[in-house]
């Protein structure tokens, strides 16, 4: 383990409780996690164990019921709703299981979307989205609408959208969950390359052992806590 590396994410003693009517669901309890910069972390665990919940906390999409979430030195659990949205736009790239592309926009426009929040000029936005599409190998499909692309291609557009703002942190919730083996492998190749060559810190939730094997570390979530071993 490389001790000299800075921690990018520090989660300390986090509880997450959901209320459903009068019922309280304790999803995370006293959870600690540190993610060094440049790591490719895989999160595994049974369905309903709270993997997505944890990912949302790291990405500032949700707040802990208790405890602190610090990302890049910023205690994001203390930010206002507005500030948090702007923070996400600058620092986090999100990749979804079902891609979540805008059906009315072309691949290129979809990739350009997060740049609308940056104040970059139109031509600069074009340039950057072209580069991002090139990185995922889809330059030749930039004018296509999502419905005319395969699942693997749509996910690559999703990844291009996630990296176009050059975020430090890439959060992927089952990015290969809806893809066949071959397309899934291509996506994993891409994520691995982004991690190795561009130094992106990646947290990936997955159910797939093969996918997790691509990561530099795998953690298992069970009964609200993380461990390095899968429980039987």
């Amino acid at each position, binding site marked *: 383990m490389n001790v000299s590396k800075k921690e990018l994410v520090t989660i300390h003693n986090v509880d997450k409780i959901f209320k459903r009517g009068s019922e309280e669901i304790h999803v995370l309890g006293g959870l600690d996690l540190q993610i060094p910069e440049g790591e490719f972390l895989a999160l595994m665990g049974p369905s309903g164990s709270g993997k997505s919940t944890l990912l*949302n906390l790291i990405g500032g999409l949700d707040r802990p019921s208790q405890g602190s979430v610090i990302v890049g030195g910023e205690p994001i659990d203390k930010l206002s709703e507005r500030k948090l949205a*702007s*923070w996400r736009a600058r620092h986090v790239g*999100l990749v979804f299981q079902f891609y979540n592309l805008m059906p009315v926009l072309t691949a290129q426009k979809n990739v350009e979307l997060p740049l*609308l929040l*940056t*104040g970059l000029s139109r031509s600069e936005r074009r340039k950057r989205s072209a580069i991002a599409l090139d990185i995922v190998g889809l330059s030749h499909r930039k004018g296509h609408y999502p419905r005319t692309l395969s699942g693997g291609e749509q996910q690559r557009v999703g990844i291009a959208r996630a990296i176009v703002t050059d975020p430090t942190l890439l959060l992927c919730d089952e990015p290969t969950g809806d893809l066949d083996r071959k397309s899934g492998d291509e996506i994993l190749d891409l994520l691995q390359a982004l991690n190795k060559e561009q130094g992106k810190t990646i947290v990936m939730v997955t159910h797939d052992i093969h996918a997790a094997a691509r990561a530099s570390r795998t953690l298992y979530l069970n009964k609200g806590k993380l461990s390095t071993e899968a429980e039987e």
Partner: protein
Amino acid sequence: MNRLLNWFSQIVSITLFNVRSLPQRIGSSLTAVLGIAGVVAVLVGVLSIAQGILRTMERSVSPDNVVVLRSGATYEMMSGLSGDDARFISEGPGLARDESGPLASPELFVVINLPMRSTGSDANVPLRGVSLIAPDLRSGFRIVEGRMFEPGLNELIVGVGSQREIVGLEVGSTITVAQEEWPIVGAFEAGGGLAESEIWVDAAVLQPAYRRGNSYQVVYAKLKSPDSFQEYKDALTSDPRLNVKPVLEADYYEEQSALLYNLITGLGTLIAVIMSLGAMFGALNTMYTAISSRSREIATLRALGFHASPVVISVLMESLFLALVGGIIGALAAWLVFDGYRAATLNFSSFSQVAFAFDVSPSLLIRGIVFAMVIGLIGGLFPAIRAARQPVATALREL
């Protein structure tokens, strides 16, 4: 500055998606648009009736005309003047004169029943006994067919408005008045004013036919100038022989039309408001559908860092846009269908028919469109707020 620009571009881009995805939701959007169009058409249509009546009442008004009724009487129907009263009123100071004397016309007023063209049922038609001065006191008076009645004979002339609304008022035919057949010898216009709804005859002939002796109900007169009104009024009200109330014609008609105008406007607005509740639910439903069909997109945008307020505003913009389209369609339809459409209604102040044309004025069109926008605003507000209130994580889960 940069932040504002950023915020603004967020609104623009989200609104753009919304509008681009409109074709996918054409059904429900169209329903909302048409619902709003219907409400606006009805509102504008009804208000144009009130507007048209007001126009008719005011059209024949000239600023130097006075109307003299017995004091305490608001309407001609309630008034009564003796022959002497009429003479004193006509001789008051400040009236304009021609070679035959002062421009004053003592008149009486009865109501006869004649069948309407539209329904075939009887309507109250005003039959007015006038002097030969009467035409000088209605601006725009013109015989358009036949000739003026001969004084002393039971000859009638009919207003073109009453001709349009009532059966059997052609020049050359006769109608029954006081159990006798009276011939129609002419038809007249009166500048689109109230007189066009009337039938005229020599007052001296009408008085005995209805056993009115030598009495009248009203004197219409023309002042030398509008400034003479005070002098004329003071003279009449201080004359111990008289108990009358002179009013400027403009004020007289304003009071006359107020009742009808307010009634129709009030009723029209009430109907429109009730209908608009329906349209509002239509718009509400459309926007809820629109938002739930795009909840994944909205949640994704917010996850990517778009703020909640641009989401709210863009939803409102879409709803306002639909309302605007509906409002324009409705207003245009009302204008095409109703403007200039002629009809008649009961004038409550004389209990007789008044013929008028629906008047869809530009200000009414604007009022209709504004009303549509209010519907759109309310219909979009609640769905918009709901879309923005939902936490991002929850919204993403609900896809």
